[in-house]
């Protein structure tokens, strides 16, 4: 599919998914009710629910999905590896260890957030310091350092889960599977998404060259080392922001860029905005389903990103061959 067809289609999915998210939940609203509530003229329950709960929630889901998908695109270009996702370099592992350790100690939401941010930050610095050699035209060291650190964090996560009791375990599992019910720092997340997304789109020509091989990129005049460092920190910033919003929501960052590629859009100029839009819409859809299907019980959104995404992606893959 040509990007000139796909991109407008993806733009249309944004209001549709946001509308779907606003209409559904413990208190279903008709489209017209949503509309009046959004205009905010009367003070009824619908207006309250919409402005206080649902709008922040769908906006958080959208921005989180966009952050993850964009981070996936950047990491797949940096690592030149189709299996790269926002969590491959151990950032989520560090964040999870931080968050779970805080939960185990009975810390509140703010401390947990701070602790998970600290864990992610340490992981980012450690992987970069140990794994990145400036001027080395080989990115495997960075990739393997990240994967090894992830494995170490995985062991710590298991340990923390084992030590935790009863209700704590459930909170931890929600964090690990991704959950958008405690999202905070929404304006900042939008700022990160827009800033990195715009920069990456503007610099997309260089990304195409870089993804095509490092020697080739250097021969075509790209300052490879600086680009790699820039990409790494941009992707890390996106991932940390997403982790702070919704824990480690899986699948989006890995699969959304591939879905766009399978639809026939490969050049980063289109891949970046398309993935961001689809990632956002997709996570809104998944999160809405997580809120509605067992309502009033809310399920971790990570379950639905996989349950929804897997069949679609398998279909796209089989269609291609």
């Amino acid at each position: 599919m040509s990007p000139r067809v796909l991109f407008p289609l993806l733009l249309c999915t944004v209001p549709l998914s946001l509308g779907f998210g606003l209409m559904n939940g413990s208190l279903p609203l008709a489209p017209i009710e949503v509309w009046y509530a959004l205009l905010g003229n009367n003070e009824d329950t619908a207006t309250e629910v919409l402005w206080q709960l649902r709008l922040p929630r769908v906006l958080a889901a959208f921005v989180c999905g966009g952050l993850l998908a964009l981070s996936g695109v950047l990491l797949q270009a940096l690592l030149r590896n189709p299996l790269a996702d926002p969590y491959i370099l151990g950032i989520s592992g560090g964040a999870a260890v931080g968050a779970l350790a805080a939960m185990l100690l009975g810390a509140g939401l703010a401390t947990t957030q701070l602790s998970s941010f600290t864990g992610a930050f340490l992981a980012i610095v450690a992987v970069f310091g140990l794994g990145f050699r400036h001027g080395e035209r080989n990115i495997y060291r960075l990739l393997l350092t990240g994967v090894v650190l992830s494995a170490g964090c995985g062991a710590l996560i298991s340990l923390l889960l084992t030590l935790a009791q009863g209700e704590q375990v459930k909170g931890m599992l929600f964090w690990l599977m991704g959950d958008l019910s405690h999202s905070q720092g929404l304006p900042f997340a939008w700022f990160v998404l827009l800033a990195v997304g715009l920069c990456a789109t503007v610099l997309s020509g260089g990304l195409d060259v870089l993804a095509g091989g490092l020697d080739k990129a250097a021969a075509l005049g790209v300052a490879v080392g600086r680009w790699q460092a820039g990409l790494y920190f941009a992707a890390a910033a996106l991932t940390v922001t997403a982790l702070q919003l919704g824990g480690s929501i899986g699948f989006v960052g890995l699969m959304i860029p591939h879905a766009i590629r399978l639809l026939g859009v490969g050049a980063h100029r289109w891949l970046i905005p398309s993935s961001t839009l689809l990632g956002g819409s997709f996570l809104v859809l998944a999160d809405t389903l997580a809120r509605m299907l067992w309502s009033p019980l809310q399920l971790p959104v990570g379950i639905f990103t996989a349950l929804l995404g897997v069949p679609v992606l398998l279909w796209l893959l089989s269609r291609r061959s």
Partner: protein
Amino acid sequence: MQAFLEARKLTVAIGGKLICRELDMMIRPGECWGVLGQNGVGKTTLLRTLAGLHTPQAGMVSWNGVALAAHARRNLAQHLGVLLQNEGGEFWGSVQEYVLLGRFPHRTSLFGYNVQDETLAQQALAQMELEGLTQRPYNTLSGGERQRAAIAQALAQQAQCYLLDEPLQHLDLRHQAQTMQVFSRLKEQGCALMMVLHDTLWAQRCCDHVLLQFADGHVLHGPAQKLLTCAHLEALYQYPLRELSVEGERWFVAGV
């Protein structure tokens, strides 16, 4: 005439293996160099060193009289084109988008390529007989088609000097001949070329200079007519060869 690319006292080694010692050479406009040698002798490493992609042990490489390292990489890329043997990358776009990457160093706007870039890419695609494949996803191409796309990308770059690592790999006979014709035209236009070849016939037909890399790190270079002899090539490949003469052209074939 001012040399495009010049190596002075160049010593190159990789992984403890000596590739060349105190090599002096210069490539001038309108020259075509062939690089010959056994597998693993370091032809690619020498080419990468000349392209500024590998740091030599000693000595220096200069472009237009100025050390490579002193040039901004982008400026250099506007004049010096490199065709690599293994790109080791993924490209998810169309063939046309792939060839357009050759215009990257010439881009004037930050966002996208202009009409001139697209015209040059189109011409390069036509030169490599890829017009019918422009919209195909690059990663669906066959080995030979990929090689032609890579050459088209280099042509779109419009460099003054090309370093080509096995430009004929994966190409069938017709495309080998056509590609060499394209290179000959570049040479006539004043371009300088240096290419790694395994076919001595193409080296004789198209190269005016050859560089022979021996397994012990010894390098011999000079006029092709003088160096492409049975004795030199037997020493180079460490294998008995037979020299045939077909319509006045010398052919070297491996003996059995």
